[in-house]
């Protein structure tokens, strides 16, 4: 075969080294191993350094993408991470879980001729590079003497806290669970988000002077009005969407039917994959059906596999095109042997004498006209019911806002869906000095959109504090 002349532009991006398939399905270590220096430089050199870059427009936290990539290409890694951190205090997290393909990379000009520059992997590379070296203590502005309470230590809370601390404010983060990080800790499994990374990024936030108080459930331990009365001038609510949704089908209360949140909290937060060395148990059996096709469903399915399940199914009522999970996650799941059962919807469950689920009745679906979401509506096909044998069912059809703050804060306006109503520009709620952002405002969304909201809120809180 004739060799093509070497093109100056490399159409394909440098592939991500991954843990070997046969090994990774038996452990919770990170699957994507990260670029080496050479790989990162090669990928960075693919960037055309457009005169009018489109990539940054797609970034919810306004990172100067072109500049940091140029620095990587020049092997100036320290300067590259400093450039990223001008805008984003949590790059090791974003580099791993941002849906870059829908944001910065979606706008990359290289995407028109081949693969877009893999900005996410480059962000992760410089973040990990710095973490290995030990992050420098960040610069801060002079103390303002103002105190801010941040509720929740998930993505929105951490970034808000970091940005406010950099501006010289005193920040206390209240976290209800016994570990910080919110969904990064209890939700996203270690093979996608190693817990040391979350801790290290949080340590950076602490170095900025932020105090993180664990085991503090606001609404019960202190109310928001009490915080405002007791020395805090402003409050940011970033409590997230963690209330699980169930299907409402007969026998859904059987043992072995978990909400995705219960399943993932047991595995990730309570480390039940190490049971009985850790005390919290989980039981998966051989056949697992995960209902839903978002990232949470993929995470649940891949956890089930790692817990020893022999057959793991994703059961989804629409077709592959409508699956809400990131393409990369679907690819990883399929590679690992997760079986997609598309156009299929559960209708009821059957249990054994001990009250443990053993079968699930499903019905086949077809796609009709688009619905309000713009996706084609799934319609049941009459008399197409069939039975699946299952030992475990995980319901991953979405989560709704955590309700405790809304129930315990008088005057805080919320929607019927339980989300907090805010001014879109500023993030201010119906209460003066009280701001909110992330899933508690939008309903379940992405880590980066929560961070974007946190950053916007931090700017408005700063204005509020300085003009108060």
């Amino acid at each position, binding site marked *: 075969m004739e060799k093509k002349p070497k093109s100056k532009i490399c159409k394909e991006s440098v592939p991500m080294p991954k843990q070997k398939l046969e090994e990774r399905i038996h452990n919770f270590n990170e699957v994507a191993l990260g670029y080496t220096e050479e790989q990162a430089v090669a990928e960075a050199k693919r960037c055309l350094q457009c005169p009018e870059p489109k990539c940054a427009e797609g970034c919810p936290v306004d990172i100067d993408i072109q500049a940091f990539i140029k620095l990587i290409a020049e092997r100036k890694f320290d300067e590259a991470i400093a450039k990223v951190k001008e805008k984003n205090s949590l790059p090791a997290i974003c580099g791993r879980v941002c849906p870059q393909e829908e944001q910065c990379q979606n706008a990359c000009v290289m995407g028109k001729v081949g693969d877009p520059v893999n900005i996410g992997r480059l962000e992760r590379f410089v973040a990990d590079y710095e973490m290995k070296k030990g992050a420098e203590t960040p610069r801060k502005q002079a103390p303002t003497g103002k105190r801010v309470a941040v509720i929740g230590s998930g993505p929105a809370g951490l970034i808000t806290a970091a940005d406010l601390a950099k501006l010289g404010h005193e920040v206390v983060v209240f976290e209800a669970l016994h570990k910080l990080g919110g969904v990064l800790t209890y939700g996203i499994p270690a093979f996608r988000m190693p817990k040391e990374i979350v801790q290290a990024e949080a340590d950076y936030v602490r170095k900025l002077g932020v105090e993180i108080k664990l085991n503090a459930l606001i609404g019960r331990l202190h109310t928001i009005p009490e915080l405002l009365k007791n020395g805090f001038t402003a409050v940011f609510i970033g409590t997230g969407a963690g209330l699980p949704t169930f299907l409402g089908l007969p026998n859904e*209360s059987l043992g072995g039917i978990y909400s995705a949140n219960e399943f993932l909290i047991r595995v990730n937060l309570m480390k039940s994959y190490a049971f009985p060395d850790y005390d919290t148990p989980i039981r998966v059996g051989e056949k697992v059906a995960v209902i839903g096709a978002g990232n949470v469903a993929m995470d649940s399915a891949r956890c089930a596999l790692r817990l020893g399940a022999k057959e793991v199914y994703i059961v989804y009522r629409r077709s592959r095109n409508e699956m809400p999970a990131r393409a990369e996650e679907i690819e990883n799941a399929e590679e690992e042997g997760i079986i997609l059962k598309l156009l299929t919807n559960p209708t009821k469950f059957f249990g054994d004498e*001990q009250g443990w689920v053993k079968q699930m009745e499903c019905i086949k679906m077809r796609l009709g006209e688009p619905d309000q979401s713009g996706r084609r509506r799934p319609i049941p096909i009459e008399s197409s019911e069939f039975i699946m044998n299952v030992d475990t069912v995980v319901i991953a059809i979405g989560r709704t806002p955590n309700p405790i703050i809304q129930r315990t804060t008088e005057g805080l306006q919320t929607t019927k869906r339980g989300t907090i109503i805010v001014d879109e520009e500023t993030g201010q709620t119906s209460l003066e000095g009280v701001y909110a952002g992330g899933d508690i405002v939008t309903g379940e969304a992405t880590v980066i959109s929560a961070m974007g909201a946190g950053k916007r809120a931090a700017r408005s809180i700063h204005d509020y504090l300085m003009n108060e």
Partner: protein
Amino acid sequence: MYRIVAMQTLAPQTKLIEIYAPEIVAKAHAGQFVILRVDEEGERIPLTLADWKPEANTITLIFQEVGVSTIKLGSLNVNEELCDVVGPLGNPTDVRNYGTVVIVGGGVGIAPCLPITKAFKKTGSRVISIIGARNEKLLILEREMRCICDEVHISTDDGSKGHKGFVSDVLNILIKKGYSIDIVYAIGPSVMMRAIAETTRPHKIKTVVSLNPIMVDGMGMCGACRVSVGGKVKFACVDGPEFDAHQVDFDQLIKRQRAFLAEERTALEHWEKCRGN
């Protein structure tokens, strides 16, 4: 941070622990619970408050040593520290003057009855309690209940103290005797609470139970504690823990409570083996 101030054996396998927790004390109400972890490997253990002392800044919990987590908890000593304590969690008891309140406590369930009993007494309600256990040795807090209540009735399964039989039998007797009862509060094993619900149902006496399903986070996120109340899914942690007893599907609750029995045995054997070595 969460220092143990007192640890006391009240009955076989039943212990009282007092923990230094000033922030929780300041916010505690009858009917609420806390979640604690003994150590880094530990489960999150939900326990309803049995008491709290503002002067000492301590909360009091009473628990039965039935599995690894509670046995580990019971093996701790005064001045040792717990890894985590979070609370107060759940909705407080709706305390008001109902007229005559009957408080029914079974086994270790008598403990959470104590603050509820005190709270009702403060409203001026007439408070009658029925407390029971398998036998006299396992009966706790009799003296404390006598100090508060207008009447205290006792039952034991084996008849070693008080009425021989169940607390529900005693409640039935009181109803038959013509006691005018405005509300019943019952806390104890699920089978006991189910029996109380069935005792009061024909008489249409309002009955409230405090449920103790399996919980993980205890703040509305996992749904492990889901219970069927009036045909609707409720989360005991954020919607409860107290519910209208006549609306609760106890059969479902009992099955769900037993979901991890096999694993609980495994955990216990593992712990005993580790400790033995």
